[in-house]
């Protein structure tokens, strides 16, 4: 069974990548996950300088979901390159660096710094993290701003640029078209939805950051819809994510139009989830009549119904 796929110029041995922010930089899962076996690893969002993130508590469980308000704490690009990237590079992982910034210039600065760094295969622009009040968030639902930051980053790097979309907007296709026109090489969909829980016993928000990002199987229908919509709106490839836990879930995203997927929250409960999913992909693809990952991409779209 051929599990290989491509996201634009980036070739992947299989379609399952670790989602940004849920897999650290790799060594945390040493002994449990061999990063070379993954389709790739999207690392935690990286800013030009270290960010502190939000006050704890930073996670809270909801029905089939998880709220987090990490707030993009990160070591900054220099420490990332010095301390974190080597582990992944040495093991031959395909690395997607998720980048964040408070301004266009900050995004571009990270992109420029990463350009040409050995072991970095693509950049993923997080214009959609709901946990940052300044900067980041407004890019996520303003097509013109999103296009501008995409252009700024494209101008600063030769690396493929994936733009990660926020579902917290009513016009995903419009966003997708705007960033595609600005030169994005691929789209990632979706980041978390803005949610919140109340700690009833203590009569206060459950998260230190008050609101947080909702992930996990609860949001899978939103994510599948997003992939379905944007993959029809643009010609660039889409990397799908949101609540994936099984190989059948991966197939759902492929059928909806994704060329690859990322797994996030599932890793917390089952660190081996990605490896298990990759192992089960051949059986699941065969069960539903596919002889390769590529054959399944977009196979549920109207024009392809007879496939």
């Amino acid at each position, binding site marked *: 069974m051929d599990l290989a796929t491509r996201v634009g110029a980036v070739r992947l041995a299989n379609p399952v990548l670790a989602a940004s*922010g*849920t*897999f*650290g*930089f790799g060594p*945390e*899962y040493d*002994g*449990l996950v061999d990063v070379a076996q993954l389709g790739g690893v999207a690392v*935690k969002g990286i800013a030009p300088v270290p960010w*502190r*993130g939000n006050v*704890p*508590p*930073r*996670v*809270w*469980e909801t029905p*089939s*979901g*998880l709220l*987090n308000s*990490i707030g993009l*704490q990160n070591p900054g690009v220099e420490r990332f390159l010095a301390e974190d990237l080597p582990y992944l590079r040495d093991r031959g992982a395909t690395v997607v660096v998720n980048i964040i910034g408070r301004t266009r210039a900050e995004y571009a600065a990270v992109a420029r710094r990463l350009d040409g760094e050995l072991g970095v295969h693509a950049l993923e622009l997080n214009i959609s993290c709901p946990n940052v009040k300044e900067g980041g968030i407004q890019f996520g639902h303003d097509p013109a701003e999103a296009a501008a930051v995409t252009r700024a980053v494209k101008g600063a790097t030769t690396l493929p640029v994936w733009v990660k979309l926020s579902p917290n907007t009513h016009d995903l296709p419009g966003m997708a078209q705007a960033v595609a026109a600005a030169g994005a090489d691929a789209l990632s969909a979706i980041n978390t939805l803005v949610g919140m829980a109340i700690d009833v016993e203590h009569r206060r928000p459950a998260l230190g950051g008050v609101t947080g990002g909702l992930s*996990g199987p609860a949001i899978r229908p939103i994510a599948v819809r997003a992939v379905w919509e944007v993959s029809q709106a643009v010609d660039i490839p889409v990397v799908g994510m949101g609540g994936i836990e099984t190989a059948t879930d991966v197939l759902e995203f492929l059928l909806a139009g994704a060329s690859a997927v990322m797994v996030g*929250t599932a*890793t*917390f*409960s*089952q*660190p*081996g989830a990605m490896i298990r999913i990759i192992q089960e992909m051949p059986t699941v693809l065969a069960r539903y009549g596919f002889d390769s990952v590529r054959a399944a991409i977009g196979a549920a779209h109207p024009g392809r119904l007879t496939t």
Partner: protein
Amino acid sequence: MPRYELEVVERQEPKPDHVELLLDAPSLAAALTPGQFAHVWTPGRLRRPISFSRATPDGRVGLLFRVVGSGTRWLADRRVGDRLDVLAPLGHGFPTPETGPVLLVGGGVGIPPLFVAAQRWAATHPLSVILGARTADAVVMVADFQALGLEPSISTDDGSLGELGRVTSPLTRWLARNDGGQVLACGPTPMLAAVAELVGDGRPCWLAYEQRMGCGVGACLACVVPGVGTDGQPEWLRVCHDGPVFSSRRLWWARRPEEA
């Protein structure tokens, strides 16, 4: 850190709403540092962190927990023969104390990791034990300490067992009686802050912290507590990976108990 599927070989209910599961895990029992924890699979998105409560010579480890919500309720329903999916041993435990008197201070479900410390160091160090809780029904493992030849000083908020009051009174007495020595503590954050304040900077003081966790292995940055950076500025420490045991010098709340 490895993942294990461990068989429950014994199940106790030491107190109302408290369950201890003993798991067959020879390699863990041998490798464990007191204060390390297991990240235990329960239904839902997140595992649950539980400190090890004992490590026996015949290769068993214990998890002793209070039933407070859905995860611990599910765990409490496990029976002998069931298997638990755990990531362990996680985190950094208490460092081996220097020679000299050692005081263990445990509050409520903070007591279990200190019993592992007692098991480990009872033979090598002069140990004293202070246990506290809101009520008698939450003071666990007293007989276990006694079986090691230790006689815990007990205090409860309602006086239903031992002295009426907080662990701070017996702690003050111990500090007055002992010039040097070191303190190892685990319990609710306000208790830890109070312990750190009383102990001060004169002796080593190690505190085992709690925080809501995501991954349990250092990847997600969920479980942070404020620490004091080398520059004196606040910096986040990950309870799962940098802790759960920290020197009181590194902890913000230990330095500023009024904020805890």
